[in-house]
């Protein structure tokens, strides 16, 4: 008896957990499923919220403060609401910026039109801004790579831009690039600005924190409807949605980086007489460079991840072509386009890193030629390739000048190869895969889904809040309870349960795969570097591309969605496992070896426990990624929140529904995030890290 008591007091949390499970299951059995039973499903108390949001927005956009405006096109006065005029003015500014870059790369008349008129351009055919020949852009990329980092980066930039042009994707790629070249710097500047603001002012930081949390867990689709309503359809709306999506990680990493700067640095700077501005831009930000650069990396990755989704609201470029290719089931073409997106991401990332890390040599004594050798060389190249492009006009007969612009889809293509590969997989493994699919659906997924749906709402609350209590005390219990109650009071609780079921399955499998693969790869230097590279690639590779082959193999089923989820959500689990294990100090390895542990023991008893908090952050990210992908899985066909978010794109009350559903997804993510983070913090304290 006393042994038992000892055991209970030693394993207090475990006992609490067992008691919690007992209560949970007895609630599940006791409460009868009927819609009138308040313990089974809460009444949808805030079902009116979407409508309210909607009415507010439409009042703001279509009725608030109407002003009379003379419309020159129809020669009449019109009443237009103020806010709409303001957002449209912002839209046209953004659009103008995108177009300037786009026309430098691809040629056009719109920039000239902005300063004159369409009439002027139509009457004067010479008023056309010529495109830079692709050869110039290629060599500029190579030169930039070389001047920033040397031969390696030059090769990468060169190969990437050649790939894009030779495969005939130059035009859409440059359209996407022009959008990213506006969105990424804007996100960077905004992120840095808000980050610095939050660092300097506590109340700004505490006001930003919940916003950032929600923004980072809201699914991509939820950003589209508001962007469309406020800013219209087109590249500008795509760019604005991208900026909103890509800024939060930048803000967060800026704050993180600045906070890490040790006070000695600040003091030294103040002693040398820095003013506020110098302190921030000459001392603090350069010192916090490492985290800020991770922020830049995140911004670029997010921008290109959003490039595809932004094409739903009118962004031109690779994303739109990708959707078209997928619609024709042309997986090969889609893969080529996907590779273009990855290449743009990788090159931009490496170039910006190299630029930020370049040291200025203040003591070099160079003459004009030496200082400007790259610019001069570039000027020479521009001249040279322009002449070649001009000669090209006489060489090619079909009206395409391959020295000037390789027209869209006129390059070489490996489509048949990829298509053949996909067809081969489908043909060869069809029946095995089908059997697997049926087994998975009938014996795992359907029962799991059924189990989730047959949980009474009160039991779910007891379970989740109970876990919150065990991990982080009353405070945690109330925080997760708040997140859940919001969802429970909407009319989408059942949908949220289906989302939760798919995300749970995805997270469990992804975490298992990720931690295993990560642990194996972390054993040597080379494998850990290459696995991180693979993670980077898969993170930018547009997730839509998996959808088609997966549907071919597994049909419009939950299996398809979950496979897409697992491919995507395994990335953070792997990455953080590798990073966590690699960060275990060598001295501890040595200490372990000296005490005579073997490899397996060292992994189990030393490395894993020490890396555990970091790995839990990985699992945390896995949850967010899995939720995102479950929502994107609506493109395959699901019955969860995602399908409703997709529907809100075309709904009458779209903006309200889209946002409320987005909050629901975000709150699921945040509840899990809170639990895991609290647990990881506890472990960290226990380990003395």
């Amino acid at each position: 008896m006393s042994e038992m008591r000892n055991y209970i007091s030693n394993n207090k949390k475990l006992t609490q957990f067992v008691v919690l499970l007992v209560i949970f299951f007895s609630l599940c059995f006791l409460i009868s499923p009927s819609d009138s039973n308040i313990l089974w499903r809460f009444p949808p108390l805030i079902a009116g919220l979407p409508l309210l949001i909607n009415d507010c927005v439409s009042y703001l956009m279509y009725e608030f403060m109407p002003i009379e405006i003379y419309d020159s096109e129809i020669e009449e006065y019109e009443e237009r609401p103020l806010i709409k005029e303001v957002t449209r003015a912002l839209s046209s500014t953004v659009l103008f910026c995108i177009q300037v870059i786009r026309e430098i790369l691809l040629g056009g008349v719109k920039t000239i039109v902005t300063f004159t008129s369409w009439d002027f351009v139509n009457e004067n055919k010479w008023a056309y801004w010529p495109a830079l020949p692709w050869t110039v852009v290629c060599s500029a990329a190579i030169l930039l790579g070389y001047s920033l980092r040397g031969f390696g980066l030059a090769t990468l930039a060169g190969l990437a831009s050649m790939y894009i042009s030779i495969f005939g994707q130059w035009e859409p790629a440059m359209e996407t690039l022009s959008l990213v070249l506006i969105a990424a710097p804007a996100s960077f500047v905004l992120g840095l600005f808000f980050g610095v603001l939050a660092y300097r002012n506590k109340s700004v930081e505490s006001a930003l924190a919940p916003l950032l949390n929600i923004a980072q867990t809201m699914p991509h689709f939820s950003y589209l409807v508001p962007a469309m309503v406020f800013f219209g359809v087109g590249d500008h709306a795509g760019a604005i949605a991208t900026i909103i999506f890509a800024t939060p990680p930048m803000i967060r990493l800026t704050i993180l980086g600045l906070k890490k700067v040790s006070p000695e640095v600040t003091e030294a700077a103040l002693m040398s007489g820095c003013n506020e501005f110098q302190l921030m831009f000459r001392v603090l930000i350069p010192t916090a460079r490492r985290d800020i650069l991770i922020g830049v990396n995140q911004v670029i990755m997010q921008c290109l991840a959003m490039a595809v989704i932004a094409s739903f609201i009118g962004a031109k470029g690779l994303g739109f072509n990708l959707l078209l290719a997928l619609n024709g089931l042309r997986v090969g073409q889609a893969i080529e386009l996907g590779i273009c997106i990855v290449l743009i991401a990788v090159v931009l990332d490496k170039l910006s890193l190299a630029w930020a890390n370049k040291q200025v040599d203040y003591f070099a004594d160079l003459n004009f030629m030496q200082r400007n050798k790259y610019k001069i060389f570039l000027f020479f190249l521009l001249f040279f390739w322009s002449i070649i492009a001009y000669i090209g006009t006489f060489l090619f007969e079909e009206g395409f000048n391959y020295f000037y612009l390789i027209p869209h889809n006129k390059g070489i293509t490996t489509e048949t190869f990829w298509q053949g590969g996909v067809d081969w997989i489908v043909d060869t493994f069809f029946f095995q895969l089908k059997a697997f699919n049926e087994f998975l659906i009938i014996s795992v997924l359907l029962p799991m889904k059924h189990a989730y749906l047959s949980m009474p709402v009160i039991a779910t609350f007891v379970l989740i809040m109970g876990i919150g209590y065990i991990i982080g005390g009353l405070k945690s219990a109330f925080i997760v309870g708040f997140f859940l109650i919001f969802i429970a009071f909407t009319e989408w609780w059942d949908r949220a349960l289906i989302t939760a079921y798919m995300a749970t399955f995805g997270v469990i499998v992804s975490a298992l795969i990720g931690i295993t693969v990560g642990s194996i790869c972390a054993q040597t230097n080379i494998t850990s570097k290459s696995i991180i590279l693979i993670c980077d690639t898969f993170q930018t590779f547009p997730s839509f591309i998996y959808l088609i082959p997966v549907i071919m193999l597994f049909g419009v089923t939950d299996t398809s969605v979950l496979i897409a989820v697992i491919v995507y959500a395994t990335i953070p689990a792997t990455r953080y496992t590798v990073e966590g294990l690699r960060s275990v100090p060598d001295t501890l390895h040595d200490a372990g070896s000296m005490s005579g542990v073997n490899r397996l023991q060292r992994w189990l008893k030393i490395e894993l426990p020490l890396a555990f908090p970091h790995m839990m952050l990985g699992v945390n990210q896995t949850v967010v990624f899995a939720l995102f992908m479950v929502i994107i899985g609506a493109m395959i066909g699901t019955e969860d929140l995602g399908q409703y978010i997709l529907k809100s794109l075309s709904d009458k009350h779209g903006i309200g529904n889209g946002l409320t559903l987005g909050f629901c997804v975000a709150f699921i993510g945040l509840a899990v995030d809170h639990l895991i983070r609290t647990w990881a913090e506890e472990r960290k304290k226990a380990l003395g890290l």
Partner: protein
Amino acid sequence: MRKIITAFLVSVGLLMAPAFLSAKDSSKPIVIPTHNWSSQVVMAYVIGGIFESMGNTVEYVPADTQAVYEAIRNGDVTISHEVWQSTFGKSFYEAMAKGGIIDAGTHAAMTLEEVGVPQWVIDKNLCPGLPNWEALKDCKDVFATADSGGKGRILEGPQSWHGVEYPDRVEALLGDDWVVKFAGSADALWAELAAAKKEGRGTITFNWTPNFTDADGFAFIEWPPYYPGCRKQDGGDSKCGSPKGWLKKAANYKMPKTHPAAYTTFSQISFNAGQIGQMAKLVDIEGLSHQDAAKKWLADNEDVWKPFTKPGM
């Protein structure tokens, strides 16, 4: 304050107002939306090509199929050249009720948007009696899938297309033996058709005509005929199929004033099912890019489209 803003904006407006006093088309570009299926994209470039031949400037913008009506209303997009009655009719009329969008006439093509089976399902006689709907009563097993729980499965398009129309109809006519599953996108439908063909199993999916699937043959289920008010949302019992529908064109309300000539042409443009099929075929079967397909179509069919450009046709 409001007056100042008004005065300011008016003066800016006046300064920027070029003289559009004649009935000549404005030189501002006509914005044509492109959606995610081939015939629509090719037709966008075809219509763009016709406008360009008249000296107009055009611009293409990718847009969501449902959201585009709101965009036309707001003036972000000028026209829409494929408004399908049963799928987009509701969004179109809702936008029209709010004002800002006008009906610019109807294509000659009749459309049908309905669930059905690929022709080879009929040829193999997997479910005797098809395409009559009553045949479905006896062959739910042919169309069952792993996740349908032994019931026959009908694969509908995304829920945003027709809401609960098909679940209502299936429940009313076929009862509990059938389920309706929503696919997330048109791609999912085509992938399902391709997979079913490879496997040789029966499948019922949502589809429409004219479409590229017409080339391989597609048999639409013949439900009890449609009559106005038969759907549940209109107060009926949902025991009816889809109507043979129209294919309309829509335009922003300013277009007749800003681009009178182009608007006249646009309102006269009328393609039939064969012509729309040709456009889709150039891309989906012959593998041309959308722009090239449009160029080829325009070059081959001058006698079809030239008359549209003459006023008072």
